[in-house]
């Protein structure tokens, strides 16, 4: 599977805006489908994009998401201005969440976002600073041959 040229998309995500939640992830998914990438890879990338987008909406003030597809990989970057993650080790634990009760009642904040990303990504790197923001980079490698 070879993508001839790199493909870039940048999307804005507004913190606390549950009305348009999921639109950045949907656009990333549609782009990857247009590029005819394998459905399993599109699924993994969609899950990562959705969780990253929801994290910005749940926790941050504002953020941006970017997608870059090159011949060997899909890279999704989400960075935000927000509270940052005080304890990254704990944040990576399944079930650990700092989301409010109200957000949990909507079915978010189950403490599965980052663990889901980790499972679906080939590489996940997170840089975060308390009271400044967080940058999450997700890499998924494309299969070297068909299938």
């Amino acid at each position: 599977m070879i993508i001839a040229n790199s493909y870039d998309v940048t999307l804005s995500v507004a913190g606390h805006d549950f009305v348009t939640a999921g639109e950045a992830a949907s656009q990333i998914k549609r782009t990857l489908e247009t590029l005819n990438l394998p459905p399993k890879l599109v699924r993994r990338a969609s899950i990562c994009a959705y969780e990253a987008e929801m994290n910005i909406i749940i926790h941050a003030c504002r953020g941006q998401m970017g997608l870059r597809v090159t011949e060997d990989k899909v890279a999704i970057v989400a960075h935000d201005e927000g509270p940052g993650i005080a304890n990254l080790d704990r944040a990576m634990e399944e079930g650990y969440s700092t989301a409010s009760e109200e957000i949990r009642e909507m079915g978010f904040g189950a403490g599965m976002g980052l663990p889901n990303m980790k499972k679906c990504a080939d590489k996940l790197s997170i840089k975060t600073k308390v009271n400044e923001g967080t940058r999450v980079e997700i890499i998924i490698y494309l299969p070297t041959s068909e299938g």
Partner: protein
Amino acid sequence: MRLIQVVQTPELRLEVKAGQEQLDRVVKGAYASDLLSNVMARANEGNIWITLQAHQNIVAVAALLNLAGIVIAGGIEPQEDTLLKAEEEGIPILTTPLSSFEVAGRLYALGIGADDGQAKMAQS
């Protein structure tokens, strides 16, 4: 089995609230959960999703996963913006007074099992 056959099963007491045009979709298994991230991780393409959540964000989850449709159980009525979004995205939304447990049991009795793909997906 197609979604329309599920809708026409009287015991499920389903009412179509959105996505009337999409009922010819093939149903490949079902998944029940009210945690959105859990659904993202475990539900598969073609699944019916049984939930008590009725806000508009369920539509994005179903669209991203190419789910067959959403059953909102427990007699809960979806919000108006949920239905608008579902029409936009072409996601069938069905409601029933039955509990999630009863819906799951009756779907299982119809021959709709947990999707085989689920275990595979969880590993990949």
